[in-house]
């Protein structure tokens, strides 16, 4: 009786479920995601005002950012502080692809999307196909954004994750700032197709607006794309967590020495987590860059943005996918809710960061694991322990009376 690779493989074959079941359970959530995202765009969006729609869209992007950061900060317990750097890299890379791609293909940066993507109000939806040729360019651009961010994640993660402890925090903090400064050094956006045709491709990639910001990106992002990708991100993160790789991630967070002693190559898995996380942050950046009303600028890479995302992950519970998603919603809605709220002469919306800090301090005191800890909303153990706590609380009160 011993665990060997050959034995495990043999048992795996014997115990493997049928292809049908595997396919159903593997694909069903994806299909559900797709259907919900289509319904959101086609059926629900027309009922919403623009303000509400923008909020729901912002929440979706925040969910992607928070859930992706959870893979590093929550699962592996490493502390990345430069998530917004990957957001910005993804945003600029994908923005450059759609903007200059559109100039080359259509001669202008106008959108060529379908029913499911964002479009100017002037376009009559009845003339549109479900998916337009511009959507394909957009999806390709998102992938480019994600992969560029992932590649940078590898470059940043490989050296810093070999080292113990706080190095990653310092390096990623620096990374965000470097990205910000680099973006500020880029050249002005080239405005006409004729001009763009004369310039080599690498030059186009660095003509993204500099300190003035990258304007003119076609606005493809819609509730459909955002929530489809948010759903996929949640699914990937949750499945990773529940898999043997997720256990490897979590074991690093729990005890790196023991993890390594049990045969986990901790450096490799930390780098993997970091790269996957950067990939989704890059995609979120792409969605952000193509959102109507968003001016993409170097500030997107700044520390304040990274801090927002860290808050979401910590509040939601380090290691909880649904917790991060929930906190992303709360943290996105909070400033909106605070807007115009006054306590005496104090305008609360100016004190957003103070409120975060207070929330964090309260969390440290009363629930240091974060809202959900490592559990998920749908874990039964979360609710049974909550019920037990409430009962104890009620019992305690009864006793003191």
């Amino acid at each position: 009786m011993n665990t060997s690779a050959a034995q495990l493989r043999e048992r795996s074959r014997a115990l493997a479920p049928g292809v049908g079941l595997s396919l159903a359970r593997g694909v069903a959530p994806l299909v559900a995601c797709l259907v919900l995202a289509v319904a959101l765009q086609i059926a629900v969006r027309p009922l919403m005002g623009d303000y509400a729609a923008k909020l729901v869209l912002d929440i979706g992007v925040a969910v992607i950012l928070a859930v992706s950061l959870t893979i590093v900060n929550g699962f592996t317990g490493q502390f990345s502080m430069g998530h917004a750097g990957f957001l910005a890299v993804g945003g600029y890379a994908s923005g450059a692809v759609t903007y200059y791609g559109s100039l080359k293909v259509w001669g202008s940066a106008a959108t060529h999307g379908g029913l499911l993507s964002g479009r100017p109000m002037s376009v009559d939806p009845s003339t549109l196909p479900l998916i337009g040729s511009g959507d394909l360019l957009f999806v390709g651009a998102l992938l480019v954004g994600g992969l560029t961010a992932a590649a940078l994640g590898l470059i940043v993660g490989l050296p810093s994750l070999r080292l113990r402890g706080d190095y990653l925090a310092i390096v990623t903090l620096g990374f965000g700032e470097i990205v910000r400064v680099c973006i500020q050094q880029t050249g002005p956006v080239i405005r006409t197709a004729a001009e763009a045709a004369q310039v080599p491709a690498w030059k186009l990639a660095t003509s993204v607006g500099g300190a003035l910001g990258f304007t003119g990106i076609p606005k493809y992002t819609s509730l459909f794309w955002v929530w489809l990708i948010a759903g996929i991100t949640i699914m990937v993160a949750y499945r990773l967590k529940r898999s043997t790789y997720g256990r490897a991630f979590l074991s690093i967070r729990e005890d790196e020495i023991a993890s390594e002693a049990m045969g986990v190559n901790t450096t490799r898995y930390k780098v993997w987590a970091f790269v996957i996380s950067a990939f989704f942050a890059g995609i979120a950046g792409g969605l952000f860059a193509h959102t109507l009303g968003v001016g993409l600028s170097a500030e997107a890479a700044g520390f304040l943005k990274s801090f927002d995302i860290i808050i979401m992950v910590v509040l939601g519970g380090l290691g909880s996918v649904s917790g991060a998603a929930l906190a992303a919603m709360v943290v996105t809605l909070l400033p909106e809710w605070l807007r115009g709220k006054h306590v005496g002469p104090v305008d609360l919306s100016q004190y957003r960061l103070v409120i975060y800090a207070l929330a964090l301090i309260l969390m440290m005191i009363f629930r240091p694991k974060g809202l959900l800890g490592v559990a998920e909303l749908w874990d039964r153990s979360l609710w049974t322990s909550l019920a037990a706590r409430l009962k104890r609380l009620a019992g305690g009160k009864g006793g003191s009376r």
Partner: protein
Amino acid sequence: MSGSDVILDVRGVSKSFGGLKAVQDFSLSLSQGGLKGLIGPNGAGKTTVFNLLTGVYRPDAGTVRLGGANLVGLRPCAIAEAGMARTFQNIRLFGQLSVLDNVRLACHLRSSGTMTGAVLGSVFARGQERAMTERARELLRLFDLADREDEEARNLPYGDQRRLEIARALATGPAVLLLDEPAAGMNPQEKVELRQLIRRVRQEFKVTILLIEHDMGLVMDVCERIAVLDYGQVIAEGTPAEVQSNPRVVEAYLGEAPAEAGHA
């Protein structure tokens, strides 16, 4: 002991921390399927020997051969893959993970498949997951932990945590198992059961065991041979009877405290 059935061969290993020579010129060989004890007063360097064997520290000098291959310089995870597993004196479980997940994590080392397969939920990945779960449950049953599989590891009583550490180490499929004071903190009843368990593990898993333990009753009972460490050096090696009557050993222990009460 013939030379050919030696599975672990340690020669001339040394390690200093600053000016402190924690382990000096340490040599030891384990024959296939053997059960050897490593004893010595507090601070003698026993745990440091384990840390050197498993790659937590790199030896200043010497070689560690497992089945012929030199392990010096390898990462701890590579040493685990080569077939060396250990438990920790100061328990190092994955506290917030469930008992089952602690053992399943250790099965990961021998698993095959890809991350993409796991995320997409491929047939093989699902089978692998089930195989690992089955394997982990088998181990938990043997260690009497089956009915606690969903509990967080940190919530287990001390004795259960010690046994879970052994189960987890075995899940990596080791050829050599290093146990660092498995009886520490156990009550007398648990200690008696532990003796049985160690014997059983040795038989059923065909592993070679090196055991650090302060409980002399247990060591003398289960070990075939014993090495005694004092100030980082091996001062005696032999059968329990030989070691017990060795004057240097008696002196090493009496210099500190009587052997029986060697450790609380």
